[in-house]
C-alpha cells in the first residue's frame, strides 16, 4: 500500500508503446522535434518496469510542456517554470511514484531556474527532460537563456547581449547526480539515454537538443547535418575512449600541462589510443563531467552527447523518509490523545 492507500503491489502488466499514448493528438507544429521525443519516451517506458499508474509526468508551460496531455499516465500541466516544485512535493510525499518532469529551455532555465537548481542540489529522484530549442516556442520566438550571444529574435532584433547557459554545466554546478544530453533526431541514442535516466536514482537532467522548425529552424544543423555530423558530435560511452570523427581517429586528450582538454588525432604526433581520455560517468568528482559539458563552448571542439555523470547518492526523499521513520520508531506509542495533551497542562473543575 502506498502512503495514500492506493494498492501498488499487483503484478506488472506487459506494456507496449500504445499503453502510454493518451489518445489525444499532439498539437505541435508539423516537423517539430517534440514529436520524435515523445515517440522515444513512449517506446522507452514499457521496459522501465514501473506501472503506468505509478508514473507521473509534470510539466510547466511551453510547447514542450504540453507533453503530459499526450501521455497516458497521471499528469500535471502546471505553471511556467514551476514544474520541479510540484514534482518535488509529490516525490517527497509519495516516494514510490516515478516522477518525470518535462520542460523547455525557457521554462526550466529562465523563469524556472531556481526550482531547477534546487531540484538538482537536493538529489530528489526526479527525471527531467529539458527540450532545448534555444528559443521561446509557445510565445512565438523570443530570446531564451540558451540562445546564442548575438542571436536575433523578436525581442532582440539587433542581437542578444546575453551569454547563454550551458544546461549540463549549470546542473553539475548545482550538484546533479545524473546529467546527459541527446538529440531529437537521434532516436536510438535518445532511447539509450532515457533508459539510463529511468534507471538512475537521484536528480536527473536529460538535455534534448530539439529543433523548432518554426522559430529557430536549423539550430542544431551543425550537429545533425550529415556532412558535418561525424566531426561535430562526440558520443560519450561509458568505459570507452572519447573518440570521434569520420574514421574514429580523433580523440579527446587531457593535457596535464595546461590542465585542459585538447583534440588529438590517433596516429599523428605519436598519439596512440592510450592517450585518449576514457569516459567514466561514474566518477564522483564532477570535474571531468564539467569539463566535457563545457567542451562545446570552445572553438574547434565537438559537442558531446551521452551521459556526462551518473553517480548514486542517497536521495533527498530517501533521507527524508529515513528521518520520518526514525522519528516514528522513537515514539511508537504516539497517538492523537498524546498529541493533544502534550506539553504543560493543568486541569480545572
Amino acid at each position, binding site marked *: 500500500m502506498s502512503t*495514500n492507500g492506493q494498492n501498488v503491489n499487483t503484478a506488472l502488466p506487459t506494456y507496449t508503446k500504445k499503453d502510454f499514448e493518451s489518445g489525444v493528438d499532439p498539437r505541435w507544429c508539423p516537423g517539430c522535434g517534440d514529436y520524435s521525443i515523445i515517440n522515444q519516451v513512449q517506446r522507452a517506458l514499457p521496459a522501465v518496469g514501473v506501472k503506468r499508474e*505509478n508514473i507521473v509526468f509534470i510539466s510547466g508551460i511551453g510547447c514542450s510542456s504540453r507533453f503530459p496531455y499526450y501521455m497516458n499516465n*497521471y*499528469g*500535471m*500541466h502546471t505553471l511556467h517554470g514551476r514544474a*520541479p516544485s510540484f514534482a518535488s*512535493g509529490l516525490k517527497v*510525499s509519495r516516494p514510490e511514484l516515478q516522477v518525470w518532469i518535462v520542460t523547455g529551455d525557457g521554462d526550466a532555465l529562465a523563469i524556472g531556474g531556481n526550482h531547477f537548481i534546487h531540484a538538482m542540489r537536493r538529489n530528489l529522484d526526479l527525471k527531467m527532460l529539458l527540450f532545448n530549442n534555444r528559443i521561446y516556442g509557445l510565445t512565438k520566438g523570443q530570446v531564451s537563456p540558451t540562445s546564442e550571444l548575438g542571436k536575433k529574435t523578436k525581442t532582440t532584433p539587433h542581437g542578444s547581449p546575453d551569454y547563454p547557459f550551458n544546461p549540463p554545466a549549470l546542473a553539475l554546478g548545482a550538484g546533479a547526480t545524473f546529467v546527459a544530453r541527446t538529440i531529437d533526431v537521434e532516436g536510438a541514442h535518445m532511447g539509450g539515454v532515457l533508459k539510463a535516466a529511468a534507471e538512475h536514482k537521484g536528480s536527473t537532467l536529460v538535455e534534448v537538443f530539439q529543433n523548432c522548425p518554426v522559430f529557430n529552424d536549423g539550430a542544431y544543423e551543425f550537429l545533425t547535418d550529415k556532412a558535418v555530423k561525424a566531426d561535430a558530435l562526440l558520443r560519450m560511452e561509458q568505459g570507452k575512449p572519447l573518440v570521434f570523427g569520420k574514421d574514429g581517429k580523433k580523440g579527446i586528450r587531457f593535457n596535464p600541462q595546461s590542465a585542459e582538454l585538447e583534440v588529438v588525432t590517433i596516429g599523428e604526433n605519436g598519439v596512440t589510443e592510450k592517450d585518449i581520455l576514457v569516459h567514466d560517468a561514474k566518477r564522483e568528482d564532477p570535474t571531468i563531467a564539467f569539463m566535457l559539458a563545457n567542451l562545446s563552448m570552445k572553438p574547434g571542439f565537438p559537442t558531446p552527447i551521452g551521459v556526462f555523470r551518473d553517480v548514486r547518492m542517497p536521495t533527498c526523499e530517501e533521507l527524508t523518509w529515513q528521518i520520518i521513520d526514525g522519528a516514528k520508531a522513537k515514539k511508537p506509542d504516539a497517538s492523537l490523545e498524546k498529541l493533544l495533551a502534550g*506539553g504543560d497542562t493543568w486541569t480545572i473543575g
Partner: protein
Amino acid sequence: MSTQVSAGKHTVEQVEAVTIRFVGDSGDGMQLTGTEFTRASALAGNDLATFPDYPAEIRAPAGSLYGVSGYQVNFGAREIHTPGDAPDVLVAMNPAALKTNLADLKPGGMLLVNAGAFTAANLEKAGYKTNPLEDAALTQTYKLVPVDMNKLTETALAGSGLSSKEVARCKNYFALGLMYWLYSRPIEPQLEAIQRKFAKKPEFAAANAAVFKAGHAYGETSEVFYQRYQVPKSKLAAGTYRSVTGNFATALGFATVARLTGRQVFLGSYPITPATEILQEMSYFKEHGVVTYQAEDEIAGIGSAIGAAFGGALACTSTSGPGLALKTEMMGLAVITELPLVIVNVQRGGPSTGMPTKTEQADLLMALFGRHGEAPMPVLAAQSPADCFWSAIEAMKIATKWMTPVLLLTDGYLGNGSEPFKIPSLDELPKLQVKYQTVPNYADGAQYMPYLRDDKLVRPWAVPGTPGLEHRVGGLEKDSLSGMVSYDGMNHERMVKTRAQKIRNVVEDVPDVETFGPASGDLLLVSWGGTFGAVRGAAEELQARGKAVSHVHLRWLNPLPKNLGEVLKRFKKVFVPEVNDGQLAFYLRGKFPGVDPLQFNRINGKPIKIGELVGKVLEVL
C-alpha cells in the same frame, strides 16, 4: 471590583483581572519570565491572554531603546479576551525598557523597576539626561517600587562560583519571585520547573532557584509592599488545559487532521516572520503523519503542496504577506485544478516588507480578490490563539470536502499571543472523511472524468497509483468533463460560473453568525479575525454601561454567513473596527448595498485596545 483579606503581615486584595507587562533588554529573559508567570496564572485557574513584543533585531546592543523586549499577560477571574490594554503593573528591568513602555502604564499603576540597572551608562543609552527614578512626577503618577535586583541577585549568589555574567543572567528570576509573592502564587511548581529546565546544568538550577526564592522573600520581608493581591479562579469550563500560541495551535490543528484521517498531512513552506513557527512546530510532528518540506521559496512551498495534493496528501502551506503575494499565481492554479489545499497567512504589518514583527489585518482584500481572473476561494479567519487549532481543522475539512484551496487568515498577534486551550476529547473533534475516487465514474465505468461533479458541484479526487484513473490536470481552461484543454468560449463561461457557484455552495458549512447582545439595537460592532477579543471586550463594556450595542464576529469571510445581511439591517448603525484602513467595511458595502458601516481603524502594529474602542463607539452612539 476587589475585596480585601489578610495574609500574614500583608493584606491580600482580591482582584478580578490584572495586566502585567515585563520589559527589559533582549538579553534580560523577559520572554521566559512572562511565560513562566503566565503558567503560574494558568495553574492558578485564571483565564488569560498574552502578547509578546519582540524587537525586530535579533539581538540588539544591550541597553538600547530598540533592543527592548516585552511580554504582556492579562489574567483574571472573569473571561479574558485580550492581553489587556494598559498594564496595571509594569516590571522594567532597565532605563530603555522604562522609557519605551512607561507611557502605556495605567495612571496609578505599579511600576516595579530594577534600580540597579539605572547606571549612568544605561541612562545615556536610553537617552535620559537625569535619572527618572529621582523624578518626583514619577512617584506622583505611579506606585514606584525601585528594587536593586542586580545587587540582590549578586547577594543571593555570593559564593556560588558563577561568573558575574552568569549571575547577571539570573536576575529575571528575582523579578519573577517577587511577582509570585505579590500575586500570592505557590512557589513549588516554579521550583520544579526550574529543576526541569536546567536538568543538565544543576549549578544553574540551584542559582536560579536561589534567586527566585530571594525575590519571593524580598516581597515578604522588605517594607516596600503594603499588600499582596490574589486573582481568584475563573469560571473556565472544566477540563484539562494547555497554553498555546496561535502558531502552535495551527500546527497542532494540522497534526490533528493527520491523526483524524490517518492520511499524510504535507506542509510545504518557507520561513517568514511571523509564520515560521508553524513550519517549525509541524516539523516536530513527524510521528503523527506530518511531512514538512522547507522549499527554496514561497512559490515552491505552495507548489510542493499542490504536487502533494495531486498525490493525495492533505496539503497546506504557511506564510505571511510578502509570501502570500508570491503564492498568488499558484493559488490560481489550485483554484482551476480544484485540488484541496490550505493556505495559512499570518498577517503582519505591510505593505512590502513593512513591519515584520508587528501585527495587522490588512491582507483581507488580497485574500478575497488578489488573484488574476475569476478565482474565488473560501476564506476564514481565526479569532484567537486557541481558535487557530479549530480553524486549521475546519479549513482542511472544507478544502477536502469541496475540493478547493482554502485561505486561513491569522495574524502576528494571534500567532505569537497565547491563551489557555481546552484540550478536546476525541468526540469533540469534527469528523473528517477523506475519500479518493478508485473506480471510473463515466460511461458505465469505462472512463474516468476528473471534472464530472456531484450535485454540490464537487469533482472527484483520484490519485496516482490508482490503475485506470490516469488523467491530467492543469492550468489551462478545461473541458467541463474530461479536464482536457478547452478553448471553447461557452465552456469557459460555464466553468467560471460553476467554480464560483461551488464556492458559494460552501455556505452550507458556514454557521450563521450569532449576535452577542440583543438582536437589534443602536449599533452593531462587526469584527473579523484577531480583533475578536478586543471587540467582544468593548461590547461587554458598552452593554454593561447600558448601551444598545451588540457584536457580530465573522470567522468566515467567504462565503459570508447566510444570515449576515439580515442581521446587519437590524441595527441603526454598523461599526467596523479593524487593524487596517477599512477593508472589511469596504467589503460589506460591496456585498450588502445599503449597508454603510462606520469605521475605526488603528494601524500602529498593535492590537486594538478595548478602552480606545469603547471611547470611539461612545462618540458615535
